[in-house]
């Protein structure tokens, strides 16, 4: 898609849609994860607390029942050591140096009585003494020298001493961390996959819309018999194509009707005109000069009438966007030079100067005959309306993808009451001698070529007409110049 339209993918509607969809999806999954994470973390906590409380009870029991003799430390130590091997969520690598569990017994006075664990237990004792423990409610404490806090449960023995069982939160954290990592990887791939799916689906859907738009714009400019491509199924896109095609059917029918009407009108008017003109011409051949004058002027009137008829039909067809074009690639610069060469002597006769300001060849695609007649109309207008000694400047340049033609004179300018509706209907200036179809015809031709026209009066007097016409696609005239060369 992007390669054909020249538009990068990240500026397409499909890109925007997928971005928003992905954003919504991302937010949703994050909320779900936070909830899940809380739930899992608290569940792990609950399970290790339950283990701690259970074990500390058992150890307290053992410590109480064991006779306080030389073997006491060893027996209780062994039991504590065994218990520490059943730590929940335990990683296999911590088999030899067990620093994740400690057992601590204090006497009635709070002094350290028995220590099973990593180090001498003083740091742990200090940390425990800084907190107030209740039986059955484990607490998290920080121990100097350890980065990760311990979860500690306690039990009170009959002699008033206490046993403490501490479990490092390291393993618990590792489990949660592993869970989070896996979730993150899964989440990231889901988001990317979702983005890709949404992007490609919407791009595929929108490419139908784009094709329809392309076809529709093409139809508008050239051929009414074409139709936009339809897609199978009955979704919105298919409906859009069907509706457009039905609309085109109707337009084609009305344009066809208009052509039929104008054709029959033209036929009904042209046939008698032909007969009259022919009769006049043949009778002209038989007359002497003095008798010929009325016939000559009748022929001239007839030609004006024919011209009026032709222009009226053209304007009528163009107003209905039904002007029939036969487009070729035209160099406007060359065309203007030829037209100016044709008109310059007439202008010079009236002491009117005409000058072309052009940067060189500028190519458009258009109906050469119509463009010729359009420029002839413009120049005829200047010839008819300018007083002696005036100047016409014709500027041709290139604006983005449009050819811009500016016609500027220093004559009387447009009548203010005429200016507003110059192109819309048949209007004539107060001193105009034409039939008033000149500028509507120019407007019609410009619009049939997908261009635009505007008229204004210069600040320093004089009229200014600005015509824009779309440039030819690059390859069409490159081929032509190559051929010419």
């Amino acid at each position, binding site marked *: 898609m992007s390669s054909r339209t020249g538009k990068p993918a990240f500026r397409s509607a499909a890109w925007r849609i997928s971005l928003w969809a992905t954003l919504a999806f991302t937010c949703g999954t994050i909320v779900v994860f936070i909830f899940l994470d809380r739930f899992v973390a608290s569940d792990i906590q609950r399970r290790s607390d339950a283990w701690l409380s259970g074990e500390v009870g058992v150890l307290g029991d053992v410590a109480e029942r064991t006779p306080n003799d030389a073997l006491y430390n060893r027996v209780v130590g062994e039991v504590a050591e065994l218990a520490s091997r059943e730590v929940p969520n335990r990683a296999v690598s911590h088999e030899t140096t067990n620093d994740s569990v400690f057992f601590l017994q204090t006497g009635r006075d709070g002094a350290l009585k028995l220590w099973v664990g990593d180090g001498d237990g003083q740091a742990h004792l200090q940390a425990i003494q800084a907190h107030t423990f209740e039986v059955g409610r484990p607490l998290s404490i920080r121990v100097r020298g350890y980065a990760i806090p311990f979860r500690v449960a306690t039990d009170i023995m009959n002699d008033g001493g206490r046993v403490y069982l501490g479990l490092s939160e390291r393993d618990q954290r590792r489990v949660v961390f592993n869970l989070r990592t896996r979730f993150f990887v899964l989440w990231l791939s889901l988001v990317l996959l979702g983005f890709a799916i949404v992007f490609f689906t919407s791009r595929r859907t929108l490419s139908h819309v784009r094709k329809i738009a392309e076809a529709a714009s093409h139809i508008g400019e050239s051929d009414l018999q074409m139709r936009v491509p339809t897609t199978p199924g009955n979704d919105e896109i298919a409906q859009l194509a069907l509706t457009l095609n039905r609309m085109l059917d109707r337009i084609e029918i009305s344009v066809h009707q208009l052509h039929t009407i104008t054709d029959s009108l033209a036929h009904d008017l042209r046939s008698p005109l032909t007969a009259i003109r*022919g009769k006049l011409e043949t009778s002209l*051949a038989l007359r002497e000069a003095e008798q*010929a004058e009325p016939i000559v002027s009748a022929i001239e009137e007839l030609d004006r009438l024919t011209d009026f008829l*032709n222009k009226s039909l053209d304007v009528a067809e163009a107003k209905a966007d039904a002007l029939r074009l036969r487009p070729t690639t035209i160099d406007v610069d060359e065309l203007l030079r030829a037209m100016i060469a044709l008109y310059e002597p*007439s202008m010079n006769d009236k002491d009117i100067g005409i000058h072309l300001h052009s940067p060189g060849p500028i190519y458009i695609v258009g109906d050469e005959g119509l463009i*010729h*007649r359009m420029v002839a109309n413009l120049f005829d207008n200047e010839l008819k309306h300018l007083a002696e000694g005036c100047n016409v400047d014709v500027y041709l340049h290139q604006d983005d993808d449009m050819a811009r033609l500016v016609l500027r004179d220093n004559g009387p300018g447009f009548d203010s009451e005429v200016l507003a509706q110059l192109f819309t209907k048949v209007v004539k200036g107060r001193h105009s001698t034409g039939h008033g179809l000149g500028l509507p015809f120019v407007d019609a031709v410009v619009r049939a070529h997908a261009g635009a026209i505007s008229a204004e009066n210069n600040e320093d007097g004089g009229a200014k007409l600005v015509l824009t016409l779309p440039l030819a696609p690059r390859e069409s005239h490159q081929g032509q110049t190559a051929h010419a060369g």
Partner: protein
Amino acid sequence: MTICSFAEGWPLRAVRYQPHSGFKERFQKTAMTGCSSELKSERSCAPACVLSANILCMRLLIVEDEHDIRAFLQQALSEAGYAVDLARDGKTAEGLAKVNTYDILIVDLGLPDQDGINLITSLRQMGVQAPVLILSARRSVDDRVRGLEQGGDDYLTKPFALAELLARLRNLLKRNVPAGIELTRLRVQDLELDLLRREATRSGQPLQLTPQEFVLLEYLCRNAGRVVTRSMILDKVWGMRIQPDTNVVDVHIYRLRGKVDGNGQWPLIRTLRGVGYVLQDR
């Protein structure tokens, strides 16, 4: 006059020639009244006379349903020297084409019994080779192209100037003649054009012409003795099919005339009001 025109390169194709009723008389009449007394007044050298000479022995079929148009075409073309047959519908035309061999056909597109283009197609299938000039009230480029694609050789929109019709008929007939030697010099009376060096002289005196004026004069010379209309000049010299409602062509002709006929010489370029211009070859 006739000998002169044959010498211009028109081959005698008199094999199939059958005198058209009244043709001889009319020809003699035009030859006497028109061309022998042409110096009496400007009007007397009327287009029909000026154009008549070349077309001897050419047989022509007009297929046209409008009586008035048929009538004046018959009159004008007979005066121009063609042997004219008439048909008011496609069926009659086909019947006539079976019996006779025509050098050229004029076919109107809007016939009562069928479309003119269908008629051309079926005539071509019957083996009619002659060039066909299409007459039509339809003016759009589409119709023109369709007509030319379907076997027509030229296309003229109604209403038309007689001079243009005659010029087109002449061109169509010329197409059937093998191309002659490419001219390098044109000579009309004491006017001479060197087509290679793009120089013109009148009575040996060089004329200072712009390139455009030279092309215009060349076109007039190539059609010396025949009327050319303004739209023909615009089409052939400038390559534009336009109908200016100002006098652009007249000004060009006026300037050219100033240079060609300027030095008190007798006028070569003559205006026929309501019709066009003619470069007189006599």
